Protein backbone atom coordinates (compact mmCIF):
# COMPACT_ATOMS: atom_id res chain seq x y z
CA UNK A 1 0.00 0.00 0.00
CA UNK A 2 1.46 3.32 -0.97
CA UNK A 3 1.81 5.73 1.87
CA UNK A 4 2.55 9.34 1.43
CA UNK A 5 4.25 11.48 3.95
CA UNK A 6 4.61 15.15 4.19
CA UNK A 7 8.16 16.25 4.44
CA UNK A 8 8.51 19.07 6.92
CA UNK A 9 9.85 22.27 5.50
CA UNK A 10 9.04 22.54 1.83
CA UNK A 11 5.88 20.47 2.01
CA UNK A 12 6.90 18.20 -0.93
CA UNK A 13 5.45 14.72 -0.91
CA UNK A 14 7.62 11.63 -1.27
CA UNK A 15 6.40 8.12 -1.97
CA UNK A 16 7.36 5.31 0.35
CA UNK A 17 7.64 1.91 -1.34
CA UNK A 18 4.42 0.00 -1.47
CA UNK A 19 3.97 -3.77 -1.16
CA UNK A 20 3.56 -3.98 -4.92
CA UNK A 21 6.98 -2.42 -5.40
CA UNK A 22 8.63 -5.11 -3.32
CA UNK A 23 6.69 -8.03 -4.75
CA UNK A 24 4.78 -8.05 -8.00
CA UNK A 25 1.32 -8.48 -9.25
CA UNK A 26 0.28 -12.08 -9.84
CA UNK A 27 -2.10 -11.06 -12.52
CA UNK A 28 -0.65 -8.09 -14.30
CA UNK A 29 -3.31 -6.02 -16.03
CA UNK A 30 -1.08 -4.95 -18.88
CA UNK A 31 2.08 -5.88 -20.69
CA UNK A 32 3.59 -2.83 -19.12
CA UNK A 33 2.83 -4.02 -15.64
CA UNK A 34 4.25 -7.46 -16.28
CA UNK A 35 7.40 -5.96 -17.77
CA UNK A 36 7.73 -3.65 -14.80
CA UNK A 37 7.76 -6.62 -12.47
CA UNK A 38 10.91 -7.92 -14.14
CA UNK A 39 12.66 -4.60 -14.19
CA UNK A 40 11.90 -3.41 -10.70
CA UNK A 41 11.99 -6.64 -8.74
CA UNK A 42 15.34 -7.73 -7.38
CA UNK A 43 14.48 -11.42 -7.51
CA UNK A 44 13.07 -11.32 -11.01
CA UNK A 45 15.41 -9.03 -12.86
CA UNK A 46 17.49 -11.92 -14.18
CA UNK A 47 14.53 -13.28 -16.13
CA UNK A 48 13.68 -12.02 -19.59
CA UNK A 49 10.51 -9.90 -19.81
CA UNK A 50 9.13 -12.18 -22.49
CA UNK A 51 9.71 -15.83 -23.02
CA UNK A 52 8.88 -18.14 -25.89
CA UNK A 53 6.10 -20.60 -25.27
CA UNK A 54 8.28 -23.39 -26.48
CA UNK A 55 11.03 -22.81 -23.95
CA UNK A 56 8.63 -23.08 -21.03
CA UNK A 57 6.93 -26.13 -22.51
CA UNK A 58 7.71 -29.26 -20.53
CA UNK A 59 8.23 -31.29 -23.69
CA UNK A 60 11.32 -29.33 -24.67
CA UNK A 61 13.40 -29.07 -21.52
CA UNK A 62 11.48 -31.17 -18.99
CA UNK A 63 12.56 -28.38 -16.63
CA UNK A 64 15.56 -30.46 -15.70
CA UNK A 65 17.93 -27.53 -15.23
CA UNK A 66 15.43 -25.75 -13.00
CA UNK A 67 14.84 -28.89 -10.98
CA UNK A 68 18.56 -29.33 -10.34
CA UNK A 69 18.83 -25.69 -9.26
CA UNK A 70 15.94 -26.17 -6.83
CA UNK A 71 17.51 -29.35 -5.49
CA UNK A 72 20.74 -27.44 -4.97
CA UNK A 73 18.82 -24.83 -3.01
CA UNK A 74 17.22 -27.53 -0.86
CA UNK A 75 20.68 -29.00 -0.30
CA UNK A 76 22.11 -25.67 0.81
CA UNK A 77 19.28 -24.99 3.22
CA UNK A 78 19.19 -28.45 4.80
CA UNK A 79 22.98 -28.65 4.76
CA UNK A 80 23.44 -25.42 6.65
CA UNK A 81 20.99 -26.58 9.31
CA UNK A 82 22.76 -29.92 9.60
CA UNK A 83 25.99 -28.01 10.20
CA UNK A 84 24.59 -26.95 13.57
CA UNK A 85 24.59 -30.56 14.72
CA UNK A 86 27.28 -32.39 12.85
CA UNK A 87 30.75 -32.53 14.45
CA UNK A 88 33.58 -33.24 12.02
CA UNK A 89 35.69 -35.24 14.41
CA UNK A 90 36.69 -38.86 14.03
CA UNK A 91 35.55 -39.60 17.58
CA UNK A 92 32.27 -37.75 17.38
CA UNK A 93 31.12 -37.68 13.77
CA UNK A 94 29.27 -40.98 13.85
CA UNK A 95 27.62 -40.18 17.17
CA UNK A 96 26.56 -36.75 15.98
CA UNK A 97 24.91 -38.28 12.92
CA UNK A 98 23.15 -40.71 15.24
CA UNK A 99 21.97 -37.74 17.29
CA UNK A 100 20.61 -36.15 14.14
CA UNK A 101 18.79 -39.40 13.38
CA UNK A 102 17.41 -40.15 16.81
CA UNK A 103 17.60 -37.18 19.18
CA UNK A 104 16.99 -34.01 17.22
CA UNK A 105 13.47 -32.96 16.32
CA UNK A 106 12.93 -33.56 12.63
CA UNK A 107 16.63 -34.43 12.37
CA UNK A 108 15.83 -37.67 10.62
CA UNK A 109 13.76 -35.81 8.03
CA UNK A 110 16.42 -33.14 7.52
CA UNK A 111 19.16 -35.66 6.94
CA UNK A 112 17.00 -37.82 4.70
CA UNK A 113 15.97 -34.78 2.66
CA UNK A 114 19.57 -33.69 2.33
CA UNK A 115 20.61 -37.14 1.22
CA UNK A 116 17.74 -37.78 -1.17
CA UNK A 117 18.07 -34.33 -2.74
CA UNK A 118 21.74 -35.09 -3.36
CA UNK A 119 20.91 -38.38 -5.06
CA UNK A 120 18.19 -36.75 -7.12
CA UNK A 121 20.48 -33.90 -8.05
CA UNK A 122 23.08 -36.29 -9.49
CA UNK A 123 20.37 -37.99 -11.53
CA UNK A 124 18.68 -34.80 -12.69
CA UNK A 125 21.92 -33.03 -13.59
CA UNK A 126 22.87 -36.08 -15.65
CA UNK A 127 19.48 -36.10 -17.38
CA UNK A 128 19.81 -32.37 -18.01
CA UNK A 129 23.09 -33.05 -19.80
CA UNK A 130 21.41 -35.78 -21.83
CA UNK A 131 18.63 -33.37 -22.79
CA UNK A 132 21.08 -30.66 -23.84
CA UNK A 133 23.03 -33.14 -25.90
CA UNK A 134 20.08 -34.71 -27.68
CA UNK A 135 18.64 -31.31 -28.56
CA UNK A 136 22.01 -30.08 -29.79
CA UNK A 137 21.71 -27.15 -27.42
CA UNK A 138 25.47 -26.82 -27.04
CA UNK A 139 25.62 -25.41 -30.57
CA UNK A 140 25.32 -21.82 -31.57
CA UNK A 141 22.21 -21.02 -33.51
CA UNK A 142 21.41 -17.75 -35.18
CA UNK A 143 21.72 -14.98 -32.69
CA UNK A 144 24.71 -12.70 -32.50
CA UNK A 145 27.38 -13.08 -29.83
CA UNK A 146 26.30 -16.48 -28.70
CA UNK A 147 28.68 -18.83 -26.99
CA UNK A 148 26.67 -21.93 -26.23
CA UNK A 149 29.75 -24.21 -26.31
CA UNK A 150 31.10 -22.23 -23.36
CA UNK A 151 27.90 -22.86 -21.48
CA UNK A 152 28.19 -26.57 -22.27
CA UNK A 153 31.67 -26.55 -20.73
CA UNK A 154 30.44 -24.68 -17.68
CA UNK A 155 27.75 -27.33 -17.44
CA UNK A 156 30.31 -30.13 -17.55
CA UNK A 157 32.20 -28.44 -14.72
CA UNK A 158 28.93 -28.26 -12.79
CA UNK A 159 28.30 -31.97 -13.35
CA UNK A 160 31.75 -32.76 -12.00
CA UNK A 161 31.21 -30.46 -9.01
CA UNK A 162 27.92 -32.20 -8.28
CA UNK A 163 29.64 -35.58 -8.27
CA UNK A 164 32.43 -34.22 -6.08
CA UNK A 165 29.89 -32.77 -3.66
CA UNK A 166 28.27 -36.16 -3.33
CA UNK A 167 31.58 -37.90 -2.93
CA UNK A 168 32.85 -35.54 -0.23
CA UNK A 169 29.53 -35.73 1.59
CA UNK A 170 29.84 -39.47 1.62
CA UNK A 171 32.68 -39.60 4.13
CA UNK A 172 31.10 -37.37 6.73
CA UNK A 173 28.90 -39.88 8.64
CA UNK A 174 32.08 -41.88 9.24
CA UNK A 175 30.31 -45.19 8.95
CA UNK A 176 31.51 -48.29 7.15
CA UNK A 177 30.09 -47.20 3.82
CA UNK A 178 31.83 -43.85 4.11
CA UNK A 179 35.17 -45.22 5.15
CA UNK A 180 35.48 -47.79 2.38
CA UNK A 181 34.12 -45.55 -0.34
CA UNK A 182 36.86 -43.07 0.48
CA UNK A 183 39.49 -45.82 0.68
CA UNK A 184 38.62 -46.97 -2.81
CA UNK A 185 38.07 -43.47 -4.17
CA UNK A 186 41.37 -42.04 -3.02
CA UNK A 187 43.23 -45.14 -4.16
CA UNK A 188 41.85 -44.52 -7.62
CA UNK A 189 43.27 -41.00 -7.38
CA UNK A 190 46.57 -42.66 -6.48
CA UNK A 191 46.54 -44.51 -9.79
CA UNK A 192 46.80 -41.19 -11.64
CA UNK A 193 50.12 -41.09 -13.48
CA UNK A 194 52.99 -39.03 -12.01
CA UNK A 195 51.08 -37.07 -9.38
CA UNK A 196 48.92 -39.91 -8.01
CA UNK A 197 50.88 -40.50 -4.83
CA UNK A 198 51.04 -36.80 -3.92
CA UNK A 199 47.41 -36.29 -4.88
CA UNK A 200 46.27 -38.96 -2.46
CA UNK A 201 48.52 -37.55 0.29
CA UNK A 202 47.00 -34.13 -0.31
CA UNK A 203 43.43 -35.43 -0.30
CA UNK A 204 43.90 -37.48 2.85
CA UNK A 205 46.14 -35.00 4.63
CA UNK A 206 48.47 -37.91 5.39
CA UNK A 207 49.06 -41.52 4.48
CA UNK A 208 45.95 -42.89 6.12
CA UNK A 209 42.32 -41.92 6.29
CA UNK A 210 41.94 -40.11 9.58
CA UNK A 211 41.06 -36.83 11.25
CA UNK A 212 42.89 -34.80 8.61
CA UNK A 213 40.89 -36.48 5.88
CA UNK A 214 37.57 -35.94 7.60
CA UNK A 215 38.09 -32.24 8.21
CA UNK A 216 39.40 -31.78 4.68
CA UNK A 217 36.35 -33.38 3.12
CA UNK A 218 34.12 -31.45 5.49
CA UNK A 219 35.48 -28.08 4.46
CA UNK A 220 35.43 -29.03 0.79
CA UNK A 221 31.87 -30.28 1.12
CA UNK A 222 30.50 -27.37 3.09
CA UNK A 223 32.36 -24.48 1.60
CA UNK A 224 34.66 -24.76 -1.37
CA UNK A 225 32.67 -26.96 -3.73
CA UNK A 226 29.27 -25.33 -3.03
CA UNK A 227 30.81 -21.89 -3.45
CA UNK A 228 32.41 -22.95 -6.71
CA UNK A 229 29.18 -24.51 -7.91
CA UNK A 230 27.21 -21.38 -7.02
CA UNK A 231 29.62 -19.30 -9.04
CA UNK A 232 29.31 -21.64 -12.00
CA UNK A 233 25.54 -21.60 -11.64
CA UNK A 234 25.38 -17.81 -11.85
CA UNK A 235 27.67 -17.84 -14.86
CA UNK A 236 25.54 -20.57 -16.47
CA UNK A 237 22.36 -18.53 -16.04
CA UNK A 238 23.99 -15.34 -17.24
CA UNK A 239 25.20 -17.11 -20.37
CA UNK A 240 21.70 -18.37 -21.12
CA UNK A 241 20.49 -14.77 -21.15
CA UNK A 242 23.43 -13.70 -23.30
CA UNK A 243 22.76 -16.57 -25.70
CA UNK A 244 19.19 -15.44 -26.16
CA UNK A 245 17.39 -17.99 -24.03
CA UNK A 246 17.04 -21.71 -24.58
CA UNK A 247 18.30 -23.12 -27.84
CA UNK A 248 14.79 -23.85 -29.10
CA UNK A 249 14.37 -20.10 -29.64
CA UNK A 250 17.16 -20.17 -32.21
CA UNK A 251 15.24 -22.73 -34.11
CA UNK A 252 12.02 -20.78 -33.85
CA UNK A 253 13.65 -17.69 -35.28
CA UNK A 254 15.27 -19.69 -38.06
CA UNK A 255 12.00 -21.27 -39.13
CA UNK A 256 10.25 -17.96 -39.04
CA UNK A 257 12.92 -16.39 -41.20
CA UNK A 258 12.38 -19.09 -43.78
CA UNK A 259 8.62 -18.69 -43.64
CA UNK A 260 8.30 -15.03 -44.28
CA UNK A 261 11.07 -12.64 -45.02
CA UNK A 262 9.14 -9.75 -43.56
CA UNK A 263 11.48 -7.41 -41.74
CA UNK A 264 11.65 -7.87 -38.04
CA UNK A 265 9.75 -5.33 -36.05
CA UNK A 266 12.20 -2.66 -35.15
CA UNK A 267 12.62 -2.03 -31.49
CA UNK A 268 14.40 0.54 -29.46
CA UNK A 269 16.72 -0.76 -26.85
CA UNK A 270 18.43 1.74 -24.68
CA UNK A 271 21.54 -0.43 -24.45
CA UNK A 272 22.13 -0.02 -28.16
CA UNK A 273 23.29 3.49 -27.64
CA UNK A 274 26.29 2.51 -25.59
CA UNK A 275 27.34 -0.93 -26.79
CA UNK A 276 28.68 -1.95 -30.13
CA UNK A 277 27.33 -4.76 -32.25
CA UNK A 278 24.03 -6.56 -32.05
CA UNK A 279 22.98 -8.38 -28.95
CA UNK A 280 21.21 -11.68 -28.72
CA UNK A 281 18.15 -9.88 -27.37
CA UNK A 282 17.71 -7.76 -30.42
CA UNK A 283 18.05 -10.86 -32.55
CA UNK A 284 15.54 -12.59 -30.35
CA UNK A 285 13.05 -10.02 -31.56
CA UNK A 286 13.09 -12.08 -34.74
CA UNK A 287 10.80 -14.45 -32.94
CA UNK A 288 7.29 -13.31 -33.64
CA UNK A 289 6.20 -11.93 -30.32
CA UNK A 290 2.48 -12.27 -30.62
CA UNK A 291 2.51 -15.76 -31.98
CA UNK A 292 5.26 -17.40 -29.96
CA UNK A 293 5.94 -15.37 -26.88
CA UNK A 294 4.25 -14.72 -23.56
CA UNK A 295 5.10 -12.49 -20.64
CA UNK A 296 7.41 -14.03 -18.04
CA UNK A 297 5.20 -12.61 -15.33
CA UNK A 298 3.10 -14.56 -14.66
CA UNK A 299 3.72 -17.44 -17.14
CA UNK A 300 7.33 -18.34 -16.35
CA UNK A 301 6.85 -17.52 -12.71
CA UNK A 302 3.85 -19.74 -12.20
CA UNK A 303 5.50 -22.71 -13.83
CA UNK A 304 8.63 -22.08 -11.81
CA UNK A 305 6.62 -22.14 -8.63
CA UNK A 306 4.84 -25.33 -9.63
CA UNK A 307 8.10 -27.08 -10.57
CA UNK A 308 9.67 -25.88 -7.33
CA UNK A 309 6.82 -27.14 -5.19
CA UNK A 310 6.71 -30.45 -7.02
CA UNK A 311 10.45 -30.94 -6.62
CA UNK A 312 10.21 -30.19 -2.93
CA UNK A 313 7.16 -32.40 -2.49
CA UNK A 314 8.70 -35.36 -4.30
CA UNK A 315 11.99 -35.17 -2.44
CA UNK A 316 10.16 -34.74 0.86
CA UNK A 317 8.03 -37.76 0.11
CA UNK A 318 11.08 -39.86 -0.73
CA UNK A 319 12.82 -38.57 2.39
CA UNK A 320 9.96 -39.60 4.63
CA UNK A 321 9.46 -42.95 2.95
CA UNK A 322 13.06 -44.00 2.48
CA UNK A 323 14.89 -42.39 5.37
CA UNK A 324 18.65 -42.59 5.19
CA UNK A 325 20.72 -45.61 6.10
CA UNK A 326 23.52 -45.44 8.59
CA UNK A 327 25.82 -48.41 8.70
CA UNK A 328 28.01 -49.51 11.56
CA UNK A 329 30.66 -47.04 12.68
CA UNK A 330 33.72 -46.96 10.46
CA UNK A 331 35.98 -49.91 11.07
CA UNK A 332 39.24 -49.72 9.17
CA UNK A 333 39.92 -53.39 9.84
CA UNK A 334 36.86 -55.01 8.35
CA UNK A 335 35.73 -54.28 4.83
CA UNK A 336 32.02 -54.87 4.35
CA UNK A 337 31.30 -57.57 1.84
CA UNK A 338 30.37 -56.56 -0.81
CA UNK A 339 31.70 -53.02 -0.50
CA UNK A 340 29.70 -50.98 -2.96
CA UNK A 341 30.12 -47.41 -4.02
CA UNK A 342 27.00 -45.19 -4.26
CA UNK A 343 24.99 -46.05 -7.37
CA UNK A 344 26.29 -43.17 -9.47
CA UNK A 345 29.85 -44.41 -9.05
CA UNK A 346 29.02 -48.08 -9.47
CA UNK A 347 29.64 -48.00 -13.21
CA UNK A 348 33.15 -46.84 -12.37
CA UNK A 349 33.57 -49.55 -9.77
CA UNK A 350 32.40 -52.08 -12.33
CA UNK A 351 34.81 -50.64 -14.89
CA UNK A 352 37.64 -50.72 -12.38
CA UNK A 353 36.86 -54.39 -11.81
CA UNK A 354 36.67 -55.51 -15.41
CA UNK A 355 39.45 -53.45 -16.96
CA UNK A 356 42.41 -55.03 -15.26
CA UNK A 357 44.49 -56.67 -17.95
CA UNK A 358 47.00 -59.40 -17.29
CA UNK A 359 49.64 -59.80 -19.96
CA UNK A 360 51.77 -62.68 -18.82
CA UNK A 361 53.22 -61.58 -15.51
CA UNK A 362 52.57 -57.95 -16.21
CA UNK A 363 49.34 -56.42 -14.93
CA UNK A 364 47.74 -53.18 -16.02
CA UNK A 365 45.79 -51.93 -13.04
CA UNK A 366 42.09 -51.41 -13.61
CA UNK A 367 42.28 -48.49 -11.20
CA UNK A 368 44.14 -46.64 -13.91
CA UNK A 369 42.12 -47.76 -16.92
CA UNK A 370 38.66 -47.83 -15.38
CA UNK A 371 39.21 -45.14 -12.78
CA UNK A 372 41.22 -42.58 -14.70
CA UNK A 373 41.71 -43.35 -18.38
CA UNK A 374 38.13 -44.13 -19.39
CA UNK A 375 36.50 -41.30 -17.38
CA UNK A 376 39.25 -38.99 -18.63
CA UNK A 377 38.57 -39.91 -22.25
CA UNK A 378 34.83 -39.51 -21.72
CA UNK A 379 35.38 -36.07 -20.23
CA UNK A 380 37.70 -35.00 -23.05
CA UNK A 381 35.18 -36.23 -25.56
CA UNK A 382 32.47 -34.20 -23.82
CA UNK A 383 34.67 -31.13 -23.94
CA UNK A 384 35.51 -31.65 -27.61
CA UNK A 385 31.93 -32.35 -28.65
CA UNK A 386 30.94 -28.78 -29.66
CA UNK A 387 34.05 -28.69 -31.85
CA UNK A 388 33.40 -32.11 -33.37
CA UNK A 389 29.79 -31.37 -34.21
CA UNK A 390 29.71 -29.82 -37.68
CA UNK A 391 25.96 -29.87 -38.20
CA UNK A 392 24.24 -26.68 -39.35
CA UNK A 393 22.53 -24.09 -37.18
CA UNK A 394 19.21 -25.70 -38.07
CA UNK A 395 20.12 -28.62 -35.81
CA UNK A 396 20.31 -26.37 -32.75
CA UNK A 397 17.52 -26.74 -30.24
CA UNK A 398 15.71 -29.63 -31.89
CA UNK A 399 15.25 -33.05 -30.36
CA UNK A 400 16.99 -35.78 -32.40
CA UNK A 401 17.72 -33.62 -35.42
CA UNK A 402 18.55 -35.91 -38.39
CA UNK A 403 21.75 -33.96 -39.06
CA UNK A 404 23.06 -35.04 -35.68
CA UNK A 405 22.04 -38.67 -36.03
CA UNK A 406 25.51 -40.13 -35.53
CA UNK A 407 26.40 -37.86 -32.61
CA UNK A 408 23.21 -38.74 -30.83
CA UNK A 409 23.59 -42.43 -31.53
CA UNK A 410 27.12 -42.51 -30.10
CA UNK A 411 26.04 -40.50 -27.08
CA UNK A 412 23.07 -42.76 -26.40
CA UNK A 413 25.31 -45.81 -26.76
CA UNK A 414 27.75 -44.44 -24.17
CA UNK A 415 24.93 -43.51 -21.79
CA UNK A 416 23.40 -46.96 -22.23
CA UNK A 417 26.73 -48.57 -21.43
CA UNK A 418 27.07 -46.49 -18.28
CA UNK A 419 23.54 -47.45 -17.26
CA UNK A 420 24.15 -51.14 -17.97
CA UNK A 421 27.33 -51.08 -15.88
CA UNK A 422 25.44 -49.31 -13.09
CA UNK A 423 22.70 -51.91 -13.15
CA UNK A 424 25.20 -54.78 -13.14
CA UNK A 425 27.02 -53.19 -10.21
CA UNK A 426 23.82 -52.55 -8.30
CA UNK A 427 21.86 -55.73 -8.77
CA UNK A 428 24.18 -58.42 -10.05
CA UNK A 429 27.17 -58.18 -7.74
CA UNK A 430 27.34 -59.91 -4.40
CA UNK A 431 29.98 -60.87 -1.88
CA UNK A 432 33.54 -60.76 -3.26
CA UNK A 433 32.04 -58.94 -6.23
CA UNK A 434 30.93 -62.27 -7.65
CA UNK A 435 28.23 -62.29 -10.27
CA UNK A 436 24.78 -63.21 -8.99
CA UNK A 437 21.36 -63.10 -10.57
CA UNK A 438 18.95 -61.06 -8.46
CA UNK A 439 16.88 -64.16 -7.66
CA UNK A 440 19.91 -66.12 -6.55
CA UNK A 441 20.60 -66.16 -2.84
CA UNK A 442 23.99 -64.90 -1.74
CA UNK A 443 26.10 -67.52 -0.02
CA UNK A 444 26.59 -67.43 3.70
CA UNK A 445 29.86 -65.62 4.35
CA UNK A 446 32.75 -68.05 4.38
CA UNK A 447 34.40 -68.51 7.76
CA UNK A 448 36.85 -65.80 8.62
CA UNK A 449 39.78 -65.66 10.95
Amino acid at each position, binding site marked *: MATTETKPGNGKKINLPSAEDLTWSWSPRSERESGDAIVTNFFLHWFPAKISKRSIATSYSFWLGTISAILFLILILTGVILMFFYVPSVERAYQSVKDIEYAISFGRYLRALHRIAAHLMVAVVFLHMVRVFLTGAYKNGLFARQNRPLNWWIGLAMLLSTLLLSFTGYLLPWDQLAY*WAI*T*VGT*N*IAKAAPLVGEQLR*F*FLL*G*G*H*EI*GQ*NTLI*RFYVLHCFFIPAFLTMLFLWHMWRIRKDGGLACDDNLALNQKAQDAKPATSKTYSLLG*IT*SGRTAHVEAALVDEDKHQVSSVPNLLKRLLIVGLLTFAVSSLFAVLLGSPLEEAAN*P*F*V*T*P*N*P*AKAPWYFLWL*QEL*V*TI*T*TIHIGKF*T*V*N*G*AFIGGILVPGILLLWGIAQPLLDRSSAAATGVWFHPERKIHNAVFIAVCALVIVLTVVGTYLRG*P*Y*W*HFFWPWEAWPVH*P*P*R*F
Partner: protein
Amino acid sequence: MSKSEIKPETGGERKAESGESSGRRRFLGTAGAAAVAAAFGIPVIMSVRSCVPNVLYEEPQRFKIGGLDKFTDGPTFIADKRLFVFRDKNTFHCIGATCTHLGCTVQLVRLKSGEPGNDYEFQCPCHGSKYHADGVNYAGPAPRPLPYFKIEIAPDDGQLVVDMSQIADRGWRLTV
Protein backbone atom coordinates in the same frame (compact mmCIF):
# COMPACT_ATOMS: atom_id res chain seq x y z
CA MET B 1 32.01 3.76 -29.10
CA SER B 2 34.43 1.95 -31.37
CA LYS B 3 38.17 2.01 -31.05
CA SER B 4 38.74 3.92 -34.25
CA GLU B 5 36.97 6.91 -32.74
CA ILE B 6 39.26 7.04 -29.76
CA LYS B 7 42.49 6.63 -31.63
CA PRO B 8 43.19 10.14 -32.84
CA GLU B 9 43.11 11.64 -29.35
CA THR B 10 45.21 9.12 -27.54
CA GLY B 11 47.49 8.62 -30.52
CA GLY B 12 48.25 12.28 -30.53
CA GLU B 13 48.94 12.26 -26.85
CA ARG B 14 51.29 9.31 -27.20
CA LYS B 15 53.24 10.94 -29.97
CA ALA B 16 53.86 13.94 -27.79
CA GLU B 17 55.67 11.80 -25.24
CA SER B 18 59.31 11.00 -25.65
CA GLY B 19 60.30 7.37 -26.31
CA GLU B 20 61.87 7.25 -22.88
CA SER B 21 58.66 8.16 -21.14
CA SER B 22 56.56 5.56 -23.03
CA GLY B 23 59.19 2.95 -22.21
CA ARG B 24 58.90 3.90 -18.58
CA ARG B 25 55.16 3.71 -18.84
CA ARG B 26 55.33 0.23 -20.27
CA PHE B 27 57.78 -0.82 -17.57
CA LEU B 28 55.57 0.56 -14.82
CA GLY B 29 52.57 -1.14 -16.37
CA THR B 30 54.32 -4.50 -16.45
CA ALA B 31 55.64 -4.02 -12.93
CA GLY B 32 52.19 -3.09 -11.72
CA ALA B 33 50.62 -6.14 -13.35
CA ALA B 34 53.35 -8.35 -11.88
CA ALA B 35 52.78 -6.84 -8.43
CA VAL B 36 49.05 -7.52 -8.64
CA ALA B 37 49.66 -11.06 -9.88
CA ALA B 38 52.10 -11.66 -7.04
CA ALA B 39 49.73 -10.14 -4.49
CA PHE B 40 47.05 -12.65 -5.46
CA GLY B 41 49.25 -15.54 -6.53
CA ILE B 42 51.58 -15.82 -3.57
CA PRO B 43 48.82 -16.15 -0.94
CA VAL B 44 47.17 -18.80 -3.11
CA ILE B 45 50.41 -20.79 -3.30
CA MET B 46 50.91 -20.32 0.44
CA SER B 47 47.40 -21.54 1.19
CA VAL B 48 47.78 -24.62 -0.97
CA ARG B 49 51.18 -25.39 0.54
CA SER B 50 49.77 -25.12 4.05
CA CYS B 51 47.40 -27.96 3.19
CA VAL B 52 50.33 -30.34 2.74
CA PRO B 53 50.98 -31.50 6.31
CA ASN B 54 54.51 -31.21 7.70
CA VAL B 55 53.72 -33.12 10.87
CA LEU B 56 51.61 -36.25 10.99
CA TYR B 57 50.24 -37.94 14.05
CA GLU B 58 49.94 -41.35 12.51
CA GLU B 59 50.65 -44.71 14.14
CA PRO B 60 54.28 -45.84 13.94
CA GLN B 61 55.11 -48.32 11.19
CA ARG B 62 57.00 -50.53 13.64
CA PHE B 63 55.12 -52.06 16.55
CA LYS B 64 54.80 -55.04 18.89
CA ILE B 65 52.10 -57.60 18.24
CA GLY B 66 52.44 -59.92 21.25
CA GLY B 67 54.46 -62.81 22.61
CA LEU B 68 55.21 -66.03 20.74
CA ASP B 69 52.69 -68.07 22.68
CA LYS B 70 49.87 -65.86 21.39
CA PHE B 71 50.24 -67.44 17.98
CA THR B 72 49.01 -70.93 17.29
CA ASP B 73 50.00 -72.84 14.18
CA GLY B 74 48.42 -71.39 11.09
CA PRO B 75 47.12 -67.89 10.41
CA THR B 76 46.25 -65.18 12.93
CA PHE B 77 44.55 -61.96 11.84
CA ILE B 78 45.71 -58.82 13.62
CA ALA B 79 42.74 -56.61 12.92
CA ASP B 80 43.93 -53.24 14.11
CA LYS B 81 47.06 -53.46 11.96
CA ARG B 82 45.47 -55.27 9.03
CA LEU B 83 48.02 -58.09 9.07
CA PHE B 84 48.07 -61.86 8.93
CA VAL B 85 50.73 -63.60 11.01
CA PHE B 86 51.43 -67.22 10.11
CA ARG B 87 53.11 -69.70 12.37
CA ASP B 88 54.49 -73.01 11.19
CA LYS B 89 55.98 -74.61 14.34
CA ASN B 90 58.99 -72.38 14.84
CA THR B 91 58.91 -70.26 11.72
CA PHE B 92 56.87 -67.11 11.32
CA HIS B 93 55.94 -64.87 8.46
CA CYS B 94 53.65 -61.92 8.10
CA ILE B 95 51.48 -60.86 5.15
CA GLY B 96 49.69 -57.52 4.86
CA ALA B 97 45.91 -57.71 4.54
CA THR B 98 45.55 -54.57 2.43
CA CYS B 99 44.46 -55.47 -1.08
CA THR B 100 46.93 -54.22 -3.68
CA HIS B 101 44.08 -53.16 -5.90
CA LEU B 102 42.33 -50.33 -4.08
CA GLY B 103 43.10 -50.90 -0.44
CA CYS B 104 40.25 -52.93 1.00
CA THR B 105 40.97 -55.49 3.68
CA VAL B 106 41.25 -58.99 2.24
CA GLN B 107 39.69 -61.93 4.00
CA LEU B 108 41.06 -65.37 4.61
CA VAL B 109 38.78 -68.00 3.16
CA ARG B 110 38.99 -71.74 3.88
CA LEU B 111 39.00 -73.81 0.72
CA LYS B 112 36.72 -76.76 0.90
CA SER B 113 38.92 -79.38 -0.73
CA GLY B 114 42.30 -78.04 0.17
CA GLU B 115 45.32 -80.27 0.50
CA PRO B 116 47.46 -79.53 3.52
CA GLY B 117 49.47 -76.38 2.94
CA ASN B 118 46.93 -75.16 0.42
CA ASP B 119 43.71 -75.13 2.41
CA TYR B 120 42.93 -71.44 2.33
CA GLU B 121 43.26 -68.33 0.15
CA PHE B 122 42.70 -64.59 0.39
CA GLN B 123 39.72 -62.91 -1.22
CA CYS B 124 38.91 -59.24 -1.49
CA PRO B 125 35.32 -58.00 -1.03
CA CYS B 126 35.62 -54.87 -3.12
CA HIS B 127 36.28 -56.10 -6.63
CA GLY B 128 36.84 -59.78 -6.15
CA SER B 129 40.63 -60.15 -6.23
CA LYS B 130 41.94 -63.54 -5.12
CA TYR B 131 45.33 -64.49 -3.77
CA HIS B 132 46.89 -67.87 -3.03
CA ALA B 133 47.93 -68.66 0.52
CA ASP B 134 51.41 -67.37 -0.29
CA GLY B 135 49.94 -63.98 -1.19
CA VAL B 136 50.29 -64.30 -4.97
CA ASN B 137 47.36 -62.79 -6.82
CA TYR B 138 45.74 -65.10 -9.33
CA ALA B 139 42.33 -63.63 -10.13
CA GLY B 140 40.54 -60.33 -10.13
CA PRO B 141 41.93 -56.87 -10.60
CA ALA B 142 44.75 -56.95 -8.04
CA PRO B 143 47.96 -55.96 -9.81
CA ARG B 144 50.51 -57.27 -7.28
CA PRO B 145 50.88 -60.00 -4.65
CA LEU B 146 50.18 -59.09 -1.05
CA PRO B 147 53.27 -57.70 0.68
CA TYR B 148 55.40 -59.63 3.19
CA PHE B 149 56.66 -57.68 6.20
CA LYS B 150 59.74 -58.40 8.31
CA ILE B 151 59.22 -59.61 11.87
CA GLU B 152 61.76 -59.58 14.66
CA ILE B 153 61.84 -60.54 18.30
CA ALA B 154 62.01 -57.59 20.65
CA PRO B 155 65.18 -57.86 22.73
CA ASP B 156 63.50 -56.50 25.88
CA ASP B 157 60.40 -58.65 26.32
CA GLY B 158 60.55 -61.24 23.56
CA GLN B 159 57.43 -60.03 21.78
CA LEU B 160 57.15 -60.14 18.01
CA VAL B 161 57.82 -56.81 16.31
CA VAL B 162 56.49 -56.06 12.84
CA ASP B 163 58.09 -53.41 10.70
CA MET B 164 55.65 -52.40 7.98
CA SER B 165 58.16 -50.11 6.35
CA GLN B 166 60.31 -53.12 5.46
CA ILE B 167 58.96 -55.23 2.64
CA ALA B 168 60.43 -58.74 2.57
CA ASP B 169 60.69 -61.37 -0.18
CA ARG B 170 58.06 -64.03 -0.45
CA GLY B 171 60.41 -66.70 0.86
CA TRP B 172 61.34 -64.73 3.93
CA ARG B 173 60.77 -66.48 7.28
CA LEU B 174 61.64 -65.75 10.88
CA THR B 175 62.92 -68.85 12.63
CA VAL B 176 62.90 -68.89 16.40
